[in-house]
């Protein structure tokens, strides 16, 4: 009994330390952002005269409205297409038992751990030849392809567990495969597809490498890519850089806090399956 209580207290203290270690960087970022622009403050000193205006300055300097719009457009390009395409493939491999399904599945799985750096150079020349270099399509189309192994893997895992009887009864009612897919299986797959949507949103929003290689103009990039450019431009003005970083973090943080339960579950399952 006594040991149990002592363990509970050690646990609580450890949790608090862990939370402090996680949050401290954000606190430091926030405090620094309030110092006068261009100054070199110490790590964690509250300024005498908090410069709340830094956030407004950074908002204009980073051109936040345009950045948000660009990131949203890229996400809107990647996520819906990936979902539809991967759900169809997962359905065929996991449920329809198409001939050669094992081969197709292994071919996709082999791409799971592929590092993006491994193909980014040819992607540049490929995008150039397709005439989409420096447009958002240069980020959207390759990302759909790069996320495909995981997306197909994820959706297949859902469809393997769907009972065969479900489709048989629909077939007896005269449903074609196409109808069976859209009317029966897509609605039932909602939990799997919505978790996948969360993951794809996050990975797209945070994508950096493809953004800086394939698109020159920061305003056509993802938030992450734009943040890289922002650092290059304002790197010497620490308070402004901190304010800008916080602003660029905010959208993901908001989405995370709203959907936190689903996020944590999806990400944990995502890495377990991956």
């Amino acid at each position, binding site marked *: 009994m006594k040991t149990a209580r002592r363990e*509970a207290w050690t*646990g609580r203290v450890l949790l608090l330390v862990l939370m402090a270690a996680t949050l401290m960087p954000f606190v*430091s970022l926030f405090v620094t952002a309030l110092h006068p622009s261009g100054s070199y403050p110490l*790590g964690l000193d509250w300024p005498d005269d908090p410069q709340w205006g830094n956030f407004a300055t950074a908002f204009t300097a980073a051109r936040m409205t345009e950045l948000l719009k660009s990131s949203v457009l890229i996400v809107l390009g990647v996520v819906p297409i990936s979902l539809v395409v991967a759900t169809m493939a997962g359905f065929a491999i996991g449920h329809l038992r198409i001939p050669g399904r094992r081969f*197709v599945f292994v071919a996709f799985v082999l791409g799971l751990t592929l590092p993006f750096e*491994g193909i980014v150079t*040819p992607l540049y020349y490929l995008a150039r030849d397709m005439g989409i270099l420096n447009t958002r399509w240069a980020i959207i189309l390759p990302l759909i392809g790069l996320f495909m192994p995981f997306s197909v893997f994820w959706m297949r895992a859902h469809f393997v567990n769907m009972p065969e009887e479900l489709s048989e009864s629909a077939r007896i009612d005269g449903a074609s495969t196409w109808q069976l897919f859209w009317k029966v299986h897509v609605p039932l797959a909602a939990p799997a597809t919505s978790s996948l949507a969360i993951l794809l949103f996050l990975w797209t929003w945070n994508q950096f490498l493809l953004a800086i290689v394939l698109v020159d103009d920061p305003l056509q990039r993802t*938030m992450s890519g734009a943040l890289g450019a922002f650092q290059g431009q304002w790197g010497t003005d*620490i308070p402004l850089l901190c304010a800008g970083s916080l602003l660029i973090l905010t959208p993901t943080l908001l989405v995370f806090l709203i959907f936190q339960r689903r996020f944590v579950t999806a990400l944990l399952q995502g890495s377990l399956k991956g």
Partner: protein
Amino acid sequence: MKAAAQRRRNWAGWLFVLPAAAFYVVFVIQPLAMTVQYSLYSWDGIGVATWNGVQNYLRVFTDPDLFAAILNALKLIVFFSAVPVMLGLAIAATIRRIAASRLALVARTVIFLPQVIPLVAAGITWSWLLSSTGLVNQLLTAVGLEGITRAWLGDFSTALPAVGVIGAWVLLGLCTLLLLAGMSKIDPALYEAARLDGAGPLREFFSITLPSLRQEIGVCVTVTVVAALASFDIVYISTQGGPGNASMVPGLEIYYLAFSEREVGLASALAVVLTVLVIACALPIQWLTRDRSS
């Protein structure tokens, strides 16, 4: 008759795979093949490419700078993988009993934050924390360790470990939660029996917890090792591979070679080596820790 219809239907199922396969082949398989092809040529990205055989690969392994980048990636595994997994195990084992409390639920959200924010943002934040006037030095001074304060990311001997610390911070929360989720699946009766037999927390950990977590540990190790080998964002933002070449990693070297130094062939050879290295590390870990029952 029925069997024939079934077979026709099965082949028609291929139409469902086609769009996914098309995206995958055009934007992943094709560039992968192109990387291999480029790696055998000497090409500046503009002029005519000339056949170079395996020369590029020889350079990857003999050029001290290039080979150092690969070694750096391997060293980063200590920070990205060993630290978060071992620390995560210790933390998860300690907080296992209070995992359902309200504090633990709040903590779940908080320690997940680094996993959600862009790596670029983590890089910028930590560049500031680790700078000469940053929080890390402020804390060290406060506890009397003024002597070792420095610009951690700008020092030849500490730049790579400092980058590693950023990675450990990002990955610790994910590992802790994954391992905690694995521990919650262990039958509590096992622990009660162990307690009755007089086993202490340590004995409990090594006899019950650790063996039951095979699969979760495998996942943590795979994810973190891949993150270490293929690191790019954090290094690009915090050190750009410097000072000198002290924290250069293959991912960043590929980027510089291909887009600044216009050595597309050499960049591609390094890309092939990196890809093979990642797969060569990920596959055995997966295989070793796979749950044999499923």
